[in-house]
């Protein structure tokens, strides 16, 4: 078996581009932030990739593992290269789903890490696009509200108890 084996159909990336071979998929995963790689979905994707490349495991499983990691929690899998991954639709989905502050924080953090992983830092235009995407994501009203709310709660928890009246 080999890492040069091609998927039956290339895997479209959320930010454009595609992964044609097991090697492409492996390289893509190693380019992700460590935190993203450590998540269950990506660990599963790594496992099925290695099974396919080194132990003759099913290539289709490797493909499915990658797609599940790329498009988690029921996000639509794009049919073509121009897959939808815009901040606005996700914000609408999250509002509809009524996510908790914690879930929203985790989602936004993961999205930011994916934007960084997908960014083309070899070109000035790519850098500007990445900054623009991060700004759109982190400056969303709901994200700012959640950060403020959670920090306010953290501040309340850190208050001294019992209060020291001697000062």
């Amino acid at each position, binding site marked *: 078996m080999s890492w040069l084996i091609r998927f039956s159909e290339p895997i479209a990336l959320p930010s454009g581009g595609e992964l044609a071979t097991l090697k492409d998929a492996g390289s893509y995963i190693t380019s992700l*932030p460590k935190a993203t790689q450590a998540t269950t979905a990506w660990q599963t994707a790594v496992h099925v990739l290695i099974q396919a490349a080194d132990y003759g495991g099913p290539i289709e499983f490797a493909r499915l593992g990658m797609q599940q990691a790329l498009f988690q929690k029921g996000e639509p899998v794009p049919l073509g290269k121009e897959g939808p991954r815009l901040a606005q639709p996700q914000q609408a989905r999250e509002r509809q789903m009524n996510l908790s502050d914690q879930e929203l924080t985790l989602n*936004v953090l993961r999205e930011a890490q994916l934007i960084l992983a997908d960014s083309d830092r070899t070109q000035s235009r790519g850098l500007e696009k990445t900054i623009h995407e991060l700004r759109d994501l982190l400056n969303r009203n709901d994200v700012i509200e959640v950060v403020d709310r959670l920090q306010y709660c953290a501040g309340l928890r850190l208050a001294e108890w019992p209060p020291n009246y001697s000062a």
Partner: protein
Amino acid sequence: MRDIDILTKAMEDAQLVLREYDQLGPRDRHAVLQRILEILDQEHVAAAQARLLKGYGQLKVVK
């Protein structure tokens, strides 16, 4: 500090970097992205993220 506080702090720090970039005008974009990457990819942030994703610290009904 709770795990969620660690993540919130990381997100706030990343927001601050972007705000500085906007206020000071276009500068070294690569350095800005590198700073954000360092903030969001810190070991303790990754660890907190992994713990929350696994559901640590959440109350569960146990039979």
